[in-house]
């Protein structure tokens, strides 16, 4: 009998603790945000200073973000890769531009402008929720 009377109180206490301890996680679940991963590939044969030259990426839309970094790796097709991750993005359409800043020549090489609508629910997106998408940009 005592257990039956205590059970609702225990459930209420558990619910209260969950709410108080995971407020941010619950808010993230209720108001989800988007993530765009930008993989910039730079032609290493054309831009032989890729190892010391940074790439900058600008994301414009309902949320704006930008970042700059040096290369992460080199693939079998002679392209140097610069990978960026932009999180906490609101729903909406985004335009993405990348720039390669050549250390040797001092020249900035722009990419084409890419557009993506978030959440990205295209059939090619492996994330079925559409909250995470990858954009591949090439600078030749």
């Amino acid at each position, binding site marked *: 009998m005592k257990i039956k009377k205590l059970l609702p109180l225990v459930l*209420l206490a558990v619910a209260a603790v969950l709410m108080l301890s995971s407020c941010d996680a619950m808010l993230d679940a209720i*108001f989800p945000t988007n993530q765009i991963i930008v993989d910039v590939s730079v032609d290493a044969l054309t831009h032989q200073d890729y190892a010391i030259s940074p790439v900058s990426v600008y994301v414009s839309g309902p949320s704006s973000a930008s970042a700059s970094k040096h290369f992460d790796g080199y693939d079998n097709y002679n392209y140097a890769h610069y990978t960026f991750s932009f999180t906490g993005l609101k729903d909406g359409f985004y335009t993405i531009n990348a720039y390669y800043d050549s250390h040797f020549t001092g020249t900035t090489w722009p990419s084409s402008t890419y557009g993506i609508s978030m959440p990205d629910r295209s059939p090619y997106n492996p994330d079925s929720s559409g909250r995470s998408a990858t954009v591949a940009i090439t600078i030749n």
Partner: protein
Amino acid sequence: MKKLLVPLVVVTLLALAVPAAFAEWELGIGLTPGQVAGNTDPNADPLLNFHVGYSWSILYASWDSYAMPDYWVYQNTTYVDPSSGYLVSGVLAPGFLNLFDVGLKIAPRPFIAFAEIGTNYLYVRGGLSYGRVGVNFRLGAGLKFGFWGINLSGTQVFASFTDLSAAFHQVGHGDWSYLTGGMVPTLNFTIYF
């Protein structure tokens, strides 16, 4: 205050006169039209709220936590600094608007009806918190079927107790619009223990 003393004593005595077997806990979830938070999209998602309540005889206490979107939090945390006159921008992040209310609830089966007043507390994602956004006044009515029920409630937030008192004063003159005009409607689904 003296005018409230007699009714408060009467209510307390009535509550004490009824056996404590009428005590019960309740858990629930509510839905509020998304336009209430300022979203002009007619297809805006409804706002979700979590409900915990306890009633003892006709006395009633509740805690409701409304998940509010970032633009609502921003609007309600942006203010003009009275000393400088400058606009102080708020926080653009979602949050939980917590309403802590006390009042009366009657449940002549299968109907329920309640009225509460209370205060509120805003928690913003990231750990920020704000004190009172105002004073709450809530009215609700619905149906109860054994261990579950459904009800419709209206919540009005006043800037201060003075504003709430002024609204009650207008009710005394037959004008309910100050008290109920602009009330936020919520459809609640509740389980009773």
